[in-house]
């Protein structure tokens, strides 16, 4: 019967096409180069220096981040450098190098909370003369405690009012880093 002829040639054509399918459906693990797991602040005062880290090893996963407490001395001035790391790979990737290379597209903001007496000023500049925030000076004021949130914005508007003074309100752009929960800071 013509019908069966039709059907069989048709099935044959289908099989030919099926044969050309991708044979290995198993997924390939992606190398998530952009992942940031760690914000590392290095405080240097004279010859003393210490490190405080905010770490979330599983990226967007459900595990909670771990946050170091920061202890400063009242009236002292600290040189603070910021490093961003991807510690999900070995050796760890230094993401701050990318931030530095694309300095004009990035800026850090240091937001204090709960009345913490901490003054932050930028010590570095991008190619256009605007701050990046990888190198900074922190001045600890009167004794007390509060919080410190580190924010990294991608493609912020660096010329907007207050932005180069460290005010994030008009910066827009996307947030690449926001340390929530914040660092707990004690000034003694």
């Amino acid at each position: 019967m013509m019908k069966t002829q039709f059907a069989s040639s048709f099935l044959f054509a289908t099989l030919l096409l099926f044969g050309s399918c991708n044979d290995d459906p198993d997924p390939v693990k992606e190398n998530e180069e952009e992942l940031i797991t760690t914000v590392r602040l290095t405080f240097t005062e004279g010859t003393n220096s210490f490190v405080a880290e905010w770490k979330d090893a599983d990226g967007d996963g459900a595990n909670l981040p771990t946050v170091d407490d920061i202890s400063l001395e009242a009236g002292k001035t600290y040189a603070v450098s910021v490093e961003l790391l991807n510690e999900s790979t070995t050796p760890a990737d230094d993401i701050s190098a990318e931030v530095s290379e694309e300095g004009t597209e990035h800026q850090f903001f240091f937001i204090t909370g709960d009345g913490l007496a901490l003054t932050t000023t930028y010590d570095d500049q991008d190619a256009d003369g605007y701050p990046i925030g990888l190198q900074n000076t922190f001045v600890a004021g009167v004794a007390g405690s509060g919080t410190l949130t580190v924010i990294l914005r991608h493609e912020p508007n660096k010329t907007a009012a207050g932005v180069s003074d460290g005010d994030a309100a008009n910066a827009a752009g996307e947030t690449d880093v926001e340390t929530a929960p914040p660092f707990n800071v004690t000034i003694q």
Partner: protein
Amino acid sequence: MAKASGTLAQAQPCNLTLQGTVIDMSTKEALPIAAIWLVGPEKGTTTDEKGRFNIKGLCAGTFTADIHYLGYKEKHLTITLPLQNELFVLMEEDDVLIDEVTVQGEAISPDKTQSEVTLSETQLARASGKSLGESLQELPGVSSLKTGPTISKPIINGLHSNRILILNNGLRQEGQQWGTEHAPEIDPMMATQISVVKGAAAVRYGPEAIGGIVVVEPPALPYEHKHLHGNVRLMAADNGRMGSASTTLQGGLGKAESVAWRLQATGRRAGDFKAPDYMLTNTGLKEADFSGAIGYKKNDWLAEAYYSKFTTELGILRSAHIGNLTDLQAAFESERPLIVEDFSYKIDNPRQEISHDLAKATFGKKGRLGDIKLVYGYQRNIRKEFDIRRGGRGETPALHMDLLTHSTDLIWEQRTWQKLRGQIGGSFIYQENRNVPGTGIEPLIPNYNSATSGVFVIERWMEDRWEIEAGLRFDNRAFQVFTFDENNEVIRPKYNFNNFSGSVGLVLKPADGWKVTSNLGTAWRPPNVSELYSQGLHHGAATIEEGNTELDTEQALKWINQLLVRKGIWSAEVSIYAQKIDNYIYLQPQPEPRLTIRGAFPVYSYVQTDAFIAGTDVSLSAQLSKQWQYSLKGSLIRAKDVSKDDFLIFMPGDRVQNSVTWSYPFQSKRTFFVSASHSLVRRQNRYPSGVDYVDPPKGYQLFGLNVGYGSQLFGNDYEIYLEGTNLLNTSYREYLNRFRYYADELGRTITIRFNYKF
């Protein structure tokens, strides 16, 4: 057949002409290639594309004209020549199964016991340059789920994405339709008409047809036409400085049994669109589509091949790309989008690049027992999404998916036996989804292989004033997912779903001009891989979406009734429906936000509930005089989460549109009209509180004007339209636009269109 009547005036010279137009009685659409035969003079012709005919060299006298048109009741008119005016022949649609009128080789039309609305060729021509989703918004009961000005998905009676089906030239369109920002990859310009069936149509089309189906159908190949025919459609709009051009060329060997072909292409280009107060930066688009078809018909045999390619590049509103919840909050609080730049045609990241290939082969055979049709379909959908990324990775797609689909359908359309006729058929679909490695980001949905098979039977009993139809279907869907578990080990879980669907429908014609249809149907949908395995951050919504591997099948029951009345100057269509969906899958916010290095994000998980949706769609028109026409369209929908006794989220607000059209009554082939419209959309007050970040926006009203002129050029018809939308340049936001958080809808837009048909 009526006999020839007298030929009284033998003395007069036989140089009279009979001319006229054949139109559909209810839609007033011209009917091309209708056959006219004059009994007596024994002369005949067929109508042209405009439904017009012209028979010369007739003698004075009285005789009978027989008019035939496939799918319409035959008409016999008594005519006395010379005639003062042109003849207008109104043809009434023959209400037997629509399949009786489908030419073999065309896609099978959906059931007629279901409520159906259609965009005609004229309406499509007047909407040239629009996407499929935007064009369909014209229809009562159909709205649009948008993501910015260029991404638009149809919503039928409140349901969209995986709950509706789009038939692209008879094949189920297989793209990544689960995504709310993934628009259908179809060029509406390839179709002569687009219909929306609003019932649960699972029996004929298988899983997913819960809310309804959109049928995008190219015309039948022109086997009867000897000459080259086609059209050109040009469009330009000020907003977005948009331009679009589309053309169709087709021809045949001019014999009923022969070869016919068609070529069609469309190009669209736009830059940044504009809201009343600011530019919508990075909302441009680039689209190029092509399709070709060839067919061969001999005796009872038919073979047709079709291929289409759709490619598009879409810019995503720059301000809608945000890092975390703080950024989202800043976006809400800002009156204007945070990034507004000067107009540009440049499409930057974030953007989408999509290509969709579709190939189809159809074989048909007419026989004593009915018609057999075998259809093979191949579809390949490649979707790349580019994000704003660090370290020069902007040119690497953040999402890169390759979806391959093979489908086969075998259908036997029975020849009518007594008053019974029907269809029996089966279908098989095989699908492979692959994430193309190298994105540097874990994929949103995993790789999978899926096989869906189904068999169905639909039978219909037809009496003069009523028809009854019943259908039954069995489906199986089996799929295997390939992904990683928490320990980064590959896992390959398998899923298997079986389901019976059924439907009963009734058509009643109590009196001339009245028709009532009622359909009760079940439909189902196994959970989609995205609902089972989604994992990750949704940019633009600042949410983390989590799949749920425990989800069960969605089960729906929809009852839809439609009343059609054509009485005197009035014409009305009212549909009323109620739908129950058990195991309705939706995203539920979780109490604890997720803490990540980018800040805190709310987490949404897929869960199931029981839903109930009811509503009505109304369309009404009145031919007030020869010049004036009034029409009204409206729809109302109420949707509840029955388990939680709460509202369902993202349901269209109540809307109504009034329009008045004035046409100049030309005696010649020219046409001119002015049409003014007013649409009103009420605020959606029925929404679950505390789920969305921002409450639904205010209601709004818009005014529009369309002016059209048609005439002839080189003996062929052309039309020019000048259309203005949002004439008062009103700033407003629409609840069903996912970018309502960030920006207003489009401001005033002036569009000019030119259509030429030859």
